[in-house]
């Protein structure tokens, strides 16, 4: 998939996965890396950017096995952002799908 396109979608996926609860970096990287087939290393720059834009904040929490983990928590601004992006996504895919249907007939 096109990298620019994927980048935008990846942002939506990260925001969405945090709606169900706080997650630590590895969890997000592993999940997004596998499901979206992106380099896991690109997840961290995105998390940092979303954090600096105020959609996430982060905190350290002790892990049962070893040093503290950095957890990410979605902010109110992030929830709004997720909603907007999701709406745009559905709108976009609907348009593309109806275009495909038009071409097929």
């Amino acid at each position, binding site marked *: 998939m096109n990298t620019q396109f994927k980048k935008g979608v990846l942002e939506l996926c990260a925001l969405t996965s945090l709606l169900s609860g706080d997650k*630590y970096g*590895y969890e997000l990287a592993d999940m997004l890396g596998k499901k979206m087939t992106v*380099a896991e*290393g690109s997840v961290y720059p995105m*998390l940092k950017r979303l954090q600096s834009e105020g959609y996430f904040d982060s905190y350290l929490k002790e892990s049962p*096995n070893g040093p503290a983990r*950095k957890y990410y928590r979605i902010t109110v601004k992030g929830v709004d952002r997720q909603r907007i992006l999701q709406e745009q996504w559905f709108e976009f895919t609907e348009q593309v799908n109806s275009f495909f249907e038009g071409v097929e007939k």
Partner: protein
Amino acid sequence: MKKIDFLNELYNYLSPLPKAERNEILNDFREHFREGELAGKTEEQICSELGSPFECAKQYVGDAIDDNRIKPQEKKKPNKTFWTVAFFWNIVQAFFSIPITFGLFVVAAIMIVAYCFIVPAIGSIAFLVFAIASTSTVLCLGIITLLWTMIEIKECIKMMNK
């Protein structure tokens, strides 16, 4: 790729950023390695899932990334000027080493002549062996010095014509 190489490369590519920010980013990746290892992955496996350090760094740094570091640094080859200078330097060395080279041959010659007279006079086999050994040693030193200088000059000529 090993963990240490990945982190080092990443750190280098992040050089346009302030040190505190670089360390913060490195900590995120260290944590990733730690968690991956706990999940039973090897360092190589984690690295390949992360992608290249350059691509990771590029997303933090953007276009400010140091392009000089993209290619593995090629070894600088000495250029023509270097070999020209080396050529003349060797000639100078050869000139100054003539007394040594030439001197060694003279000494060898004197020894041969001298022993020719002395050996029959003394008539000892031990002395004959000593005479041959010492003469050939001096002779060999002379030849080695001469050859060495010639090889160096030849090498310089070859490189200059490249």
